């Protein structure tokens, strides 16, 4: 990695990581979605650095273009209730969990750094045509036939799942407060179930 590449890598990673922090931390969900957009753009930049040009373009088209819009859409669908409230329940457990995750992540990183393997593995050098549409097409339809067909099955399930979840009857808003309180209890009284089923 020369200095220009390093600077580029640093810039893209910074954009991606800052976006991720905003996504998780933002109180306003729209800002969160914008943070996600920045993460996606940063990652597209990293793909470009890895010579995966087609993938970078797709990342921008599909994720930045379609998926983020879908996210924004769901946020609009949820409306003002999507704004997260301060939730004091289990705050201690959350902080302990976050700290444990941070410590174990740093520990793993220290372990990896200490063994000094800067280039992880002697992967073969990238051929000049790597990352173009032609080479992806060739790879996808010769060696990776099976995963390609599997992705077709995955998309099929996504379609059926969307139809199953988005059609059907919606939650009756008049039931909301009572059922809301109940849903966190451990046992379900039969009467409550009946009421829900009839609504």
């Amino acid at each position: 990695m020369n200095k220009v590449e390093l600077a580029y890598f640093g810039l893209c990673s910074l954009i991606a990581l800052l976006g991720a922090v905003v996504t998780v931390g933002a109180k306003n969900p729209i800002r969160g979605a914008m943070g996600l957009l920045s993460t996606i753009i940063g990652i597209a930049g990293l793909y470009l650095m890895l010579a995966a040009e087609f993938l970078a373009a797709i990342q921008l088209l599909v994720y930045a273009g379609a998926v983020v819009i879908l996210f924004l859409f769901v946020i609009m669908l949820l409306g003002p209730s999507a704004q997260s409230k301060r939730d004091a329940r289990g705050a201690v457990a959350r902080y302990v969990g976050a700290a444990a995750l941070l410590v174990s992540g740093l520990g793993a990183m220290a372990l990896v750094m200490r063994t000094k393997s800067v280039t992880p593995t002697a992967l073969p050098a990238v051929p000049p045509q790597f990352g173009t549409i032609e080479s992806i097409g060739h790879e996808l339809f010769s060696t990776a036939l099976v995963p390609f067909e599997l992705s077709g099955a995955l998309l099929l399930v996504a379609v059926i799942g969307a139809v199953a979840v988005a059609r059907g009857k919606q939650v009756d808003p008049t039931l909301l407060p009572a059922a809301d309180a109940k849903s966190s209890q451990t046992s379900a009284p039969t009467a409550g179930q009946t009421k829900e089923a009839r609504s």
Partner: protein
Amino acid sequence: MSTYVPLFLLFIVAAVLAGALFTISTVLGPKNPTPEKMIPYECGSETTGGRFVKPSVKFYLTAILFVVFDIEAVLIYPWTVEFKNLGWIGLATMGSFILMLVVALLYVWKKGALEWEK
């Protein structure tokens, strides 16, 4: 990588320009707010109701179907470029892939998920 340098320059120029225009107009523009100017504008009449109108879940269904078929199109693109070199196996692979998605399309169609009034 180096072929993308002009593109990055364009990005940088666009970002700087957009930022600069906003900054300049905030700094230089006259500010004289009155209560009338601060209310949301609605054709001169008084605003009524809440700020938020809940859109129908049908938008969501349409949007997610769009994303799914968008990804399908993306996967077909490399195939078209390599079509001649792939031969019959490539055609058969894409055929079965398309078959799955045709069934998916038929399914959402007949289920009425593409219809608005239902």
